[in-house]
């Protein structure tokens, strides 16, 4: 454990820690471009210069390249080091275009920040700037090579971290070029992270091109609803439009990155077809009236078909808070069935896996990254949960062996095929992990878990809150909608953010839907009440490993300002609520419904 002094603060760090990290551990910031916690060091940008005053090494050194050693005395504020960093910025700016006003990175640009911080304001170099021709990198990423400062972060991320092969570095010296070797789109399913990783504006989010500036963003910590991994994100909204999503660091879950599927999934929130008003029998209504009508219909249906003729149907994409209220509602209206799943298969599978997963047995993404033996069993991580494939690659990069049980898949790493689970030498591994999906045999896994105390499993559930709703299914004895409808007793369905297949809906005379997406269920429903999307409310999801994660409200619900007024600008009218902003979180709607029912019952008795 070397002990050193940085800016008069004594620091003790682990062997092999760089000076940069040692300084960061005591909150001393050192500017850096090429160094990144996930990518390590490259020594390419020279902006992390510090001066070593005493110890085994002396003079100006790159703090990201030098491991901390016993007895070092480091100054980050020494005039010589400051001058060095200032000059580095100045030469980085020699070729950097003066296009910050039309650059989407402006306001969240590391280069901009350090240029201002270093005090470089007036250009002294009188020569011309080198320029590059940009490439078309697909519909998601915008390329602007003129802005490049050759920190190599993109290529290190793309090739080493994410395992992409189509993008890299070309040219030499002052003509170094980062781009694709051939014409075409970026192939990696993790290419969106280039936007986050680039310290300046070479890669920007094309879907949010020219939309807003960092200081105007509506942002909040959130969780990706795309799959059951629960990667941490920061959605970015402006003028009631979800502009983009960026990765949020969580070392236990997704690390620093997210996949493209989670990143470029804003269209559902901004969709013009989203239900924005309550609808009763195809007529626009208000939330209060729709709730009252819903109560009347529930009552009428009960009169007509007797108790137990209504099913309350939730789904695995609803937030846990709303899911918790479904049994309460089912109890109040004496529902015939409480469902969280539509098909019998899905229902039984999730239930059995919930039994299997507990604190000792579930593998987080970090456990996968740190594992030394990974078994991919009957699932396709790259398609089902892309960030899991990324985690597998990190484990493989650190020397883990990856086994795939006879299955035709691709992974961003090398792997060995095995015929059955028994062929894998699990006993020899220190930290083995089995990655599977719900089609796996739980009995077999159970036996393995009992046999290997160090073994962990990572079952990939189909949706963001599959695990949380499965817990509730077990607690409240919920069945699948398929089973509930089998005997034909159910005459009405209250669907809360559920995607019910048309085949099941066909026979039901009364359907009420609470949803924020224009699903087939919403189209078929007599009563529609809009709910809020996950970015428009607070809530939580429980991911595949049983980790409950909170997500915060990013923006207010409502029709995006864009396109609201035919004049092309926001309307000249003062309103206290946004157009179409009456949507409420499903949990609030359910709570109101339950309260109305309670009040009604109290009134009757």
């Amino acid at each position, binding site marked *: 454990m070397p002990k050193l002094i940085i800016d008069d603060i004594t620091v003790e760090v682990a062997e092999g820690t760089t000076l940069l990290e040692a300084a960061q551990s005591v909150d001393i910031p050192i500017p850096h471009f090429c160094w990144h916690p996930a990518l390590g060091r490259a020594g390419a940008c020279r902006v992390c210069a510090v001066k070593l005053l005493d110890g085994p090494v002396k003079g100006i050194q790159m703090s990201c390249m030098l491991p901390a050693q016993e007895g070092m005395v480091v100054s980050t504020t020494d005039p010589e080091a400051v001058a060095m960093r200032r000059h580095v910025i100045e030469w980085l700016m020699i070729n*950097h*275009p*003066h*296009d*910050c*006003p*039309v650059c989407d990175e*402006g*306001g969240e640009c590391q280069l901009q920040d350090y240029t201002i911080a270093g005090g470089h304001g007036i250009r002294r170099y009188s020569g*011309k*700037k*080198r*320029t*590059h*021709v*940009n490439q078309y990198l697909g519909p998601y990423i915008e390329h*602007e090579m*003129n802005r490049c400062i050759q920190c190599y972060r993109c290529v290190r991320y793309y090739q080493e971290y994410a395992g992409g092969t189509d993008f890299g570095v*070309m*040219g*030499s*010296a002052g*003509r170094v*070029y980062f*781009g694709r070797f051939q014409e075409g789109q970026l192939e990696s399913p993790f290419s969106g992270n280039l936007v986050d990783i680039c310290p300046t504006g070479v890669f920007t989010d094309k879907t949010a*091109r*020219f*939309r*807003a*500036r960092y*200081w*105007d963003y509506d942002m909040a910590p959130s969780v990706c609803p795309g799959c059951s991994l629960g990667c941490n994100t920061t959605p970015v909204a402006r*003028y009631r439009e979800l502009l983009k999503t960026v990765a949020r660091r969580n070392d236990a879950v997704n690390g620093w990155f997210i996949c493209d599927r989670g990143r470029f999934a804003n269209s559902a929130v901004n969709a013009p077809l989203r239900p924005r008003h309550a609808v009763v029998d195809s007529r626009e209504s208000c939330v209060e009236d729709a709730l009252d009508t819903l109560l009347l219909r529930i009552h009428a249906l009960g009169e007509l078909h007797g108790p137990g003729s209504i099913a309350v149907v939730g789904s695995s994409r609803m937030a846990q808070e709303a899911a918790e209220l479904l049994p309460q509602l089912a109890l109040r209206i004496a529902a015939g069935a409480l469902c969280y799943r539509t098909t019998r298969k899905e229902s039984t599978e999730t239930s059995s896996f919930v039994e299997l997963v507990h604190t000792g047995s579930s593998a987080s993404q970090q456990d996968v990254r740190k594992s030394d033996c990974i078994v991919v069993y009957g699932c396709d991580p790259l398609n089902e949960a892309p960030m899991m494939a990324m985690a597998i690659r990190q484990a493989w990069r650190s020397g883990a062996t990856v086994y795939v049980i006879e299955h035709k898949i691709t992974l961003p790493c090398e792997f060995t095929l095995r015929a059955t689970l028994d062929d894998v030498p699990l006993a020899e591994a220190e930290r083995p992990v089995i990655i599977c999906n719900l089609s796996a045999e739980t009995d077999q896994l159970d036996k393995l878990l009992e046999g290997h105390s160090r073994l962990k499993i990572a079952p990939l559930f189909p949706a963001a809150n599959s695990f949380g709703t499965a817990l509730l299914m077990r607690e409240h004895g919920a069945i699948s909608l398929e089973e509930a409808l089998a005997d034909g007793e159910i005459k009405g369905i209250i669907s809360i953010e559920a995607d019910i297949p048309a085949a099941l809906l066909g026979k039901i005379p009364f359907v009420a839907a609470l949803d924020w997406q224009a699903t087939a269920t919403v189209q078929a429903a007599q009563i529609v009440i809009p709910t809020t999307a996950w970015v428009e409310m607070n809530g939580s999801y429980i991911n595949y490993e049983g980790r409950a994660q909170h997500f915060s409200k990013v923006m207010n619900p409502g029709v995006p*300002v*864009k396109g609201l007024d035919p*004049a*092309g*600008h*926001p309307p*000249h009218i003062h309103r206290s609520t946004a157009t179409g902003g009456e949507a409420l979180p499903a949990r609030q709607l359910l709570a109101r419904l339950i309260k109305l029912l309670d009040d009604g019952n109290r009134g009757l008795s």
Partner: protein
Amino acid sequence: MKIFSDMTALMTGMWITWKHIFRRPVTIQYPEQRRQPYPRYRARIVLTRDPEGGERCVACQLCSAACPVDCISMQPAEGDGGRRYAEWFRINFARCIFCGLCAEACPTLAIQMTPDYEICTRDIMNLIYEKEDLLIDGCGKSADYNFYRHAGIAVTQPRGNGAEELPPVDVRGLMP
């Protein structure tokens, strides 16, 4: 004695104000007499055009960020040839304090202030100026400046042909 110096001070003050009673007032009787503002007077804000007639404003949001009273709002959009422009641009003159920070912040010299200070109106909604009210057909000050010529991106000229730019690098070339 302190009391005498204090008395003198009081009397001096009284004498000075007494003299001012008979001075000529400096008041300008506004509606009848009008002051000719200086050319750099900070009043009504306009959006200017570049020498080629294109909109100078690139909707970079720096003016709205600089504005201490948050009276500027806009929506950037991408136009022909990758040109960034304001889809809508609004200045709420009911809120504006004419401090000039927006004009100072503007990197493209698009937002400029004019000496026209007579914009009072009875209906406050008339003070919300949209882009069509703000955009003028002229360059204003710095008549020969075109941001895109110097920015280093290809909008008004092919890549690498702007001022202070070298032609694009051939990355597949073998020359050192």
